[in-house]
């Protein structure tokens, strides 16, 4: 039977990369003095597993390189070596090197030999001696040349306890018989007699004289007994003559072996259970899950259409139909949330990458930083996690580079030398909030203002401090006096905001000069469904994302003073808000004469009142991309299919508030 080992490669890569993350986290703990006794063991085991797996799955170079790493970790584990800065540096370097090797193998690229040799050399230097040859190298050693056919005399007298090691003389003899022609005699064992009352049926009190005619050499023959050489008296001698012994002088091995055949019989008698599949987890392709989510989305729409079709039927006459449909609705909803949950991953999978980045950066910038992670178990859609990693990384780098002060600066203003950087995740009313909070110097508003005016981003001072702070999200804006290789050339923050907006999220910035900065990234739970409020305008229905709805009310004529002949503002309590008639904005004919409803929405810290004809209801909608099916439309985030089969557009509130702010300013 031949088994293609390549089918296990994907699992090996994934597991090894996880192992490297474990090692990295452990090294950080060692460095910060938070390590427990288990930390080193966990690091060692990860290296050990990578080495073992690499060898078994045919990556001998990886196995060879991790051998030195394992040796060093083993010495540390045994207490022969302490985790000083020099050793840690080499360990970090090795982790990076092994990761590069695995990534290269994964991408079927050649091994990054220069990087590998560098960390191997560093490891060898720390180990202070030429490395012992790895087991991988030993496995590759050529087999000894076959010797010529010869007859061997083998005397084998197992100790009484042989059976209690799980070894079985019959199987040993079968293994010998595979090497050549085996004949033998059961003989009485030497040694003292055993009193019948102390004789145990579990003891093996047999011995054999065997003759084996084989091509194999002595080492191969002895290897058969390698597991029992401590509990079996063994002599192997080559006979002078190669002629086979006379058959009448010996009894067949099979006869001799029946004395110990009881054990296999017991094994066979045990009831064999059917093969059990691992139940802990299964790995499936994301495309399969996405197809499932898509189908469930269609099912939700179909169910809604059915619901609408039946709603006109008499509830008494069609009671069973109504109640069955209700049940269908419940089941569809729970099916949908179960399927969506499959795509959910704890944000800890992203967070775990940051401690190392922060450590390296802080080191480079001469800052002392304590990174605190909170809410790692909070779950987020896998697609979202992948797309939020880079923006988060950028925000962290930015906080480290611009927000946090050096040790000297902090000392000068009487702050603790160690900066505190907190990254947290939490649920907040149907969305996820990721926050990056530092206790650094806060934003320098005057500097931002001066730069913004110089760059032509704005022409005059914005009204509020928050507006000034938010200028850092404008395209092309940078306050770094010198462009650093840490947070780049000022192309970052606007891209961060763009990426967050593209995920249907929003970003908020709170700065307290001298005290610190907090950036909150608010994201929807999933990219697939949305809690929406449906509103009617003329014959059309629009969906307003419920997360951005603040309130809705029926405005009185006095609340909407005419401004230049148009009602462009609405007074809500003590403030005036810009007013946008959706019918006008989308150029829809509307014959509606009633008072209408104002829906107050908020995005990016700006509020806007949307005038609609009526509120239709609140519902979860399945988001369909407008770009993929039609083209991008300003002010529209996507589309959905309503219960009656009609298409409704989902409003892009952030865009609408921006447009209205421009219109007011004009």
């Amino acid at each position, binding site marked *: *039977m*031949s*088994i293609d*080992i390549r*089918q*296990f490669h994907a*699992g*090996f890569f*994934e*597991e*090894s990369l996880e192992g490297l993350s474990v090692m990295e986290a452990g090294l950080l703990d060692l460095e910060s003095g938070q390590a427990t006794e*288990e930390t080193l*063991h*966990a690091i*060692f*085991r990860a290296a*050990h*597993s990578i*080495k*073992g*797996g*690499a*060898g*078994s*799955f045919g990556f001998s170079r990886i*196995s060879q390189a991790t051998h030195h790493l394992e040796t060093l970790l083993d010495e540390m584990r045994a207490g022969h070596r302490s985790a000083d800065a020099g050793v840690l540096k080499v360990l970090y370097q090795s982790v990076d090197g092994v990761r590069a090797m695995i990534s290269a193998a994964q991408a079927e690229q050649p091994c990054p030999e220069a990087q590998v040799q560098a960390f191997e050399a560093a490891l060898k230097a720390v180990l202070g001696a030429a490395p012992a040859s790895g*087991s*991988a190298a*030993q*496995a590759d050693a050529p087999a000894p040349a076959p010797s010529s056919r010869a007859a061997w005399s083998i005397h084998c007298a197992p100790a009484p306890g042989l*059976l*209690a*090691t*799980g*070894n*079985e003389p*019959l*199987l*040993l003899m*079968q*293994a010998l018989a595979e090497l050549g022609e085996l004949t033998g005699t059961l003989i009485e064992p030497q040694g003292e007699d055993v009193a019948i009352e102390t004789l145990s049926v*579990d003891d093996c009190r047999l011995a054999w004289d065997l003759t084996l005619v084989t091509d194999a050499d002595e080492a191969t023959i002895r290897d*058969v007994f*390698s*597991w029992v050489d*401590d509990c079996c008296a063994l002599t192997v001698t080559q006979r002078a003559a190669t002629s086979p012994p006379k058959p009448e002088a010996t009894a067949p091995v099979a006869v001799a072996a029946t004395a110990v055949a009881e*054990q*296999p019989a*017991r*094994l*066979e008698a*045990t009831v*064999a*259970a*059917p*093969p*059990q599949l*691992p139940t*802990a987890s299964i790995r499936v392709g994301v495309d399969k899950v996405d197809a499932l989510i898509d189908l469930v989305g269609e099912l939700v729409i179909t169910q809604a259409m059915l619901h609408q079709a039946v709603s006109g039927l008499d509830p008494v006459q069609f009671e069973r139909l109504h109640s069955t449909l209700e049940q269908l609705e419940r089941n569809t909803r729970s099916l949908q949330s179960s399927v969506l949950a499959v795509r959910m991953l704890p944000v800890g999978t992203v967070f775990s990458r940051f401690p190392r980045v922060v450590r390296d950066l802080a080191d480079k910038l001469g800052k002392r930083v304590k990174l605190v992670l909170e809410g790692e178990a909070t779950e987020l859609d896998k697609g979202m996690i992948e797309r939020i990693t880079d923006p988060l990384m950028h925000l962290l780098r930015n906080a480290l580079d611009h927000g946090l002060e050096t040790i000297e600066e902090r000392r000068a203003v009487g702050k603790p030398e160690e900066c505190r950087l907190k990254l947290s995740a939490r649920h907040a009313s149907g969305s996820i909030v990721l926050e990056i909070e530092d206790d650094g110097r806060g934003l320098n508003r005057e500097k931002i203002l001066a730069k913004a005016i110089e760059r032509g981003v704005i022409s005059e001072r914005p009204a509020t401090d928050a507006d000034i702070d938010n200028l850092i999200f404008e395209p092309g804006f940078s306050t770094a006096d010198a462009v650093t290789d840490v947070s780049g050339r000022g192309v970052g923050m606007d891209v961060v905001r763009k990426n967050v907006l593209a995920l249907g999220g929003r970003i908020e910035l709170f700065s307290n000069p001298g005290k610190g900065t907090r950036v909150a990234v608010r994201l929807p739970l999933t990219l697939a469904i949305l809690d929406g409020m449906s509103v009617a305008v003329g014959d059309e229905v629009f969906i307003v994302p419920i997360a951005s709805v603040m309130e809705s009310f029926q405005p009185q004529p006095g609340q909407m003073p005419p401004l230049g002949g148009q009602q462009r503002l609405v007074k809500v309590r003590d403030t005036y808000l810009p007013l946008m008639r959706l019918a006008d904005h989308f150029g829809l004919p509307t014959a509606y004469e009633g008072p209408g409803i104002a829906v107050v929405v908020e995005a990016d810290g700006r509020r806007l009142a949307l005038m609609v004809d009526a509120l239709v209801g609140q519902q979860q909608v399945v988001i369909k991309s407008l770009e993929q099916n039609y083209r991008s439309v300003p002010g529209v985030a996507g589309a959905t299919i309503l219960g009656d089969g009609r298409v409704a557009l989902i409003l892009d509130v952030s865009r609408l508030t921006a447009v209205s702010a421009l219109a007011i300013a004009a």
Partner: protein
Amino acid sequence: MPHILAVDDSSSMRQMVSFTLASAGYAVTEAEDGAIALDKARGGQYDLVLADVNMPNMDGISLIRALRALPAYQYTPMLMLTTEAGDGKKQEGRAAGATGWLVKPFNPEQLLATLKRVLPQ
């Protein structure tokens, strides 16, 4: 059909071992560490235990020692999977009651060949 308990904290190794054994017609149950394996072994009778040495919670050698002390596993073959080419771990394992060992890295063919030494065909 012999039923084998395969114990390894590495999921890719477990996957490879299980697949190989199942392809050869053995029934396989997996365990992620020694402690889980001991629980599973107590709950059923296995004909062979294959145990990695380095594992969290309970290592392979402790597992073999604990199993050997159970009447149901007094004679059961138990093999340890070790990367140590040296004798240290082997002797330690043998003292704990291991039947034999298989040195990592190994390929599916080597695994099956080793099993023939402890399981009747």
